[in-house]
């Protein structure tokens, strides 16, 4: 699997930005940099030809999550510190992080190449979705056909989860509508 120049640059950018988020001391600065991370992720999804995921990442990751973090900071305050970055990073946590990354990276060569037509999903499941999206559902966008048609049960569960999150917040804040 070869990465294009843009993809490689984006991945490098994301690693650097993720490290900056982890090391920044100020929560407001970390929130802003985290939004930049989500924006980089969204561009990466576009280069990987997943515009639906890119749209979700840009709207949820860079947009809504950032605004929710911002209002949380407004409500809780931000502890002021002299240093920009966390000074003393625990050596054990670095070792643990590197170990997890190493284990995960060791599994990457076992993955099929991006778009490999011989990989398992492309043999039965994907051809079925691609062939049946228009005849069965009349839906041109196959991603929508999968989410709202073939796998509508999963999506129904997800919508109920979103609804439950709203209800939970209303209950926690004690402001459920009488």
């Amino acid at each position: 699997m070869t990465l294009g120049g843009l993809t490689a640059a984006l991945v490098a950018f994301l690693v650097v930005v993720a490290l900056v988020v982890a090391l920044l001391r100020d929560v407001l600065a970390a929130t802003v940099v985290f939004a930049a991370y989500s924006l980089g992720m969204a561009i990466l999804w576009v280069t990987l030809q997943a515009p639906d995921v890119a749209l979700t990442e840009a709207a949820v990751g860079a947009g809504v999550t950032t605004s929710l973090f911002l209002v949380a900071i407004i409500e809780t305050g931000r502890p002021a510190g002299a240093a920009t970055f966390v000074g003393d990073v625990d050596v054990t946590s670095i070792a643990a992080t590197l170990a997890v990354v190493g284990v995960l990276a060791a599994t990457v060569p076992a993955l099929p190449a991006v778009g490999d037509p011989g990989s398992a999903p492309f043999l039965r499941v994907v051809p079925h979705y691609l062939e049946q999206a228009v005849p069965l559902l009349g839906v041109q966008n196959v991603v929508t056909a999968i989410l709202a048609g073939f796998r509508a049960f999963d999506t129904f569960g997800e919508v109920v989860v979103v609804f439950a999150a709203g209800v939970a917040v209303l209950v926690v804040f004690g402001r459920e509508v009488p």
Partner: protein
Amino acid sequence: MREPRSAESVVVTTSVRLVAPFVVTFGLFIMFHGASSIGGGFQGGVVVASAVVTIAFGFGIDQTARWLDRARLTAAATLGVLAFAVAGLGPVLFGGTFLEFPVYPGPTGALYAVEVVEVGIGVTVAATIVVLFVEIAGGFGAEAGHGGDTGADPAGEEIE
């Protein structure tokens, strides 16, 4: 009475005023065109909600929270889930199973069911995100309001 938490900047308020209608239109477009172009109910709902969030940051969170009707938002979130459930139960009437959209009659029956599902998702997601934003911004009633740069007094009373 707490200080109004608005941007108090002509640049910000004017930008929000100009951009918000287009953002809402874009969100609705994504929501209604999920079947034929990229996006869908979830993405469209998030974009519509982000327009409300933008207005809140531009014109003041508390003013926006007062302008929003909490009961209607909760009703909208519930109606979205109900629309999904009704569209999913419909195939049972035509001899299918739950969420078996292809048994809807007519050449576009399944497509309309998917559209109902998408709009239901969008309404639920948009309403829920607005509720999340407004509630977190409102804080924990009497205990809140000690943080931030403007926090002078608790904000509990303007909610509800």
